[in-house]
């Protein structure tokens, strides 16, 4: 579960309190499930223990203790490693893929490279499925593969559109 790295991606914009972090996550990934505070704090604790984030400042102004977290250098390295990895293509709602893509765009690292690598992986998965479908004798098998291919194709087309948008935005700068 890469909620930790997703949160690292949000923190890459700048340090934030847990509450603001949850709000930023939910705004950034509107299609994903909204996070619970407990989840956020538990993840932040784990990240801190692994040295990927550090506490920034603690304010105590008549309210509950509010700790701000910031990403560390090690955390940035881990984030870059995660963005450099491709997601396994699959037929189900590609939540991870979407979150990683959006993160890549925000972090402004090599988004284009990420999209191209992901495309190659998706296309390869489609190739294998297409080949096995050609050999399939039962209609049930074909139908199942059709479904997976349709979804992979949908993800692939979304990646192409995203890349198109990225190139246009960069082009107009």
């Amino acid at each position, binding site marked *: 579960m890469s909620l930790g790295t997703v949160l690292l991606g949000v923190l890459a914009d700048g340090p934030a309190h847990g509450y603001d972090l949850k709000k930023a996550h939910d705004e950034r990934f509107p299609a994903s499930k909204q996070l619970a505070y407990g989840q956020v704090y538990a993840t932040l604790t784990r990240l801190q223990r692994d040295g990927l984030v550090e506490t920034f400042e603690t304010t105590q102004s008549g309210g509950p203790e509010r700790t701000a977290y910031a990403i560390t250098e090690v955390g940035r390295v881990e984030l870059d490693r995660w963005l450099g990895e491709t997601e396994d293509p699959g037929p189900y709602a590609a939540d991870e893929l979407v979150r990683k893509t959006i993160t890549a765009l925000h972090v402004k690292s090599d988004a284009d490279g990420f999209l*191209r690598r992901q495309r*190659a992986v998706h*296309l390869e998965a*489609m*190739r294998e*499925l*297409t080949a096995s479908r*050609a050999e399939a004798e039962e209609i049930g098998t074909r139908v199942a593969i059709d479904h997976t*291919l349709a979804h992979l*194709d949908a993800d*692939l*087309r979304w990646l*192409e559109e995203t890349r*198109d948008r990225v190139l246009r935005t960069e082009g107009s700068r």
Partner: protein
Amino acid sequence: MTAATTETPLLSARALHKTYGSNPALRGASLDVYAGEAVAVTGPSGSGKSTLLHCLAGVVTADTGAITYDGRRLDELAPDERTRLRRSQFGLVLQFGQLVPELTAAENIALPLLLERRSRASARAAAEEWLGRLEVGHLADQRPPAMSGGEAQRVAIARALVTSPRIVFADEPTGALDTVTGELALEVLLSATRATGAALVLVTHDNRVAAAAGREVALRDGAVETADVAR
């Protein structure tokens, strides 16, 4: 663009430029095709895919750049020689509108063979054999207007393969067909080219069609953006 294989490519294009009027269709596209492989040329519309295909197949000549086929410079051949090469060494399958409507399926397929000086009888026999292989033997004496899109495409594929070409060029071959018919036509095209050992250059904007080929060359704005290494 380094190749993982050590063999020389069967068809090699370098730095092709082609402009139609004020529209630059190709801006320095380069590509290799190896014997027996299936490669998909992809890209959005306007990226120059069809123009690249026409240049590779010797249908049009690029403004600048070099195309080498089997050691010879394709762009330096005389038009007659190029036509003969297209007829005997290359096969072409288009999206639609490629069969002569006044000729029967068998006659359409026999036509290139007649030009290769085969006898009428042997040309007809070859045509019928290929029609049978692609499961449209019953259409031998039918004319294209009486056929469905999928049937016509199979006849077109037969025509492309009847001269035992070494490379088959297909430009959106399933574009005018519905999903299932298109998928079957694509499978027919792939298995037939594989069976004859011909290479296949497949131009498409559809990922599902591209997934039928072994590797991808992606075009954007008239130039090659990414090209998978050949295995």
